[in-house]
């Protein structure tokens, strides 16, 4: 990564090494505990990889919504990871993306109907964001980055870890928003009655603001190793994830989409 263009890590390996879990904890690779710890902390989809931003911002108005969204995404993630892992020898390379989309969309439809049947109130409040789990980058990203290359057991663990990490992140963001914006936690009044709720936190701007502060805190405390490298700059870690998650990492010119476009058609982001 050059100083002239701080927006991009030229070498995807560079980022990987810095955030690698094995630098901090020694767990056997591709085992359930390793995958779960990785999903919750080192590759936390929201705070570390900046994936799945739409549901993170939209469904964190209350803790209840966040739990509903997080758990339904987790269920879909585990099931789609399992099936993609089982079918990884059968799906031809060229038909990968459409097959993944169909598998994911099928599970989303199932969850959609289960929620409509069993939790109608939550289904109502989450609205269009339930079917939109199809385009959640986390699920496609894990299918591409992990489940398509690993066995079913490891893929389930990976899906569970990522899902739990996502759920925790949603709950944390939602707790702050609900507490400040409404004075409650999961519907129960926590703040003293003299507390005047700051409405903006449950509205759209509050979502951006709370997430910004959380990611800044993560940047400050988490990435000690990375911070020591002088040229580290998290800008442009995503055009929907960073290189670790990017489905086009093979044949990638190492430039962000915006630069590649400026230079003609050299790469694809």
């Amino acid at each position: 990564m050059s100083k002239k263009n701080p927006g991009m890590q030229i070498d995807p390996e560079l980022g990987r090494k810095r955030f690698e879990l094995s630098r901090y904890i020694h767990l056997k690779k591709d085992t359930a505990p390793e995958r779960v710890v990785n999903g919750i902390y080192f590759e936390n989809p929201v705070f570390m990889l900046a994936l799945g931003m739409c549901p993170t911002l939209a469904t964190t108005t209350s803790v209840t919504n966040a739990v509903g969204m997080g758990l339904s995404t987790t269920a879909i993630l585990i099931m789609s990871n399992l099936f993609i892992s089982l079918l990884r020898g059968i799906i031809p390379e060229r038909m990968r993306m459409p097959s993944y989309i169909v598998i994911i969309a099928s599970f989303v439809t199932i969850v959609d109907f289960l929620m409509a049947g069993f939790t109608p109130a939550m289904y109502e409040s989450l609205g269009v964001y339930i079917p939109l789990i199809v385009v959640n980058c986390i699920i496609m990203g894990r299918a591409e980055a992990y489940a398509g290359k690993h066995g079913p057991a490891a893929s389930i663990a990976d899906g569970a870890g990522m899902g739990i990490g996502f759920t925790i992140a949603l709950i944390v963001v939602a707790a702050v928003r609900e507490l400040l914006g409404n004075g409650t936690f999961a519907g129960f009044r926590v703040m003293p009655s003299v507390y005047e709720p700051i409405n903006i936190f449950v509205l759209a701007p509050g979502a951006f603001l709370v997430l910004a502060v959380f990611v800044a805190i993560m940047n400050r405390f988490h990435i000690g190793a990375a911070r020591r490298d002088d040229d580290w700059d998290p800008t442009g870690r995503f055009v929907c994830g960073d290189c670790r998650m990017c489905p086009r990492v093979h044949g990638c010119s190492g430039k962000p989409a915006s630069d590649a476009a400026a230079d003609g058609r050299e790469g694809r982001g």
Partner: protein
Amino acid sequence: MSFSTLLLLVITTILANNVVLSQFLGICSFLGVSQKTETAAGMGGALTFVLTLSSFVCGILYHFILVPFHLEYLKTIVFILIVAALVQFVEMFLKKYMHSLYEALGIYLPLITTNCAVLGVALLNVQKDYNIFVGTVYGLATAIGYWIAIVIMAFLREKMTDNDIPRPFRGFPIVMVTAALMSIAFFGFAGIK
């Protein structure tokens, strides 16, 4: 739906219910492709094209195939496949017949498949019971709202690059803070509803 209600729908969709800043759809590309104004405008253009087309095609398929055969429950799968196929088709078409436009937009087209605004609008059209025409207009208005938001964002980010931002806030967090302020500004339009 009379002309005045349609006009009101368009204006509220673009400003008050802005797709990015108040409905949180299409956040990934909004944050990812807003580093330069030109590229942001390119992304906005590509999205406008695909979103209008996809809400039209999804509307036709839903009303003329899914509803008569009672297959409404397949809408999520059908819509995402239509969007993916449409993006592929648009890319091929532009490459063959409108090469200059392809040069300008081509790079963003694959990113649009996973843009939740496209699928979101198709699903919202069904949820809100819009007919094909109103649905297409709604899609176009949503895309224009996205275009405006991403261009403003890119403009602000260009101004921001030389500023001395605290290290933990560099990159993603400062963009989110900017988005929060923009969102507050767009809240001002809520009065026109």
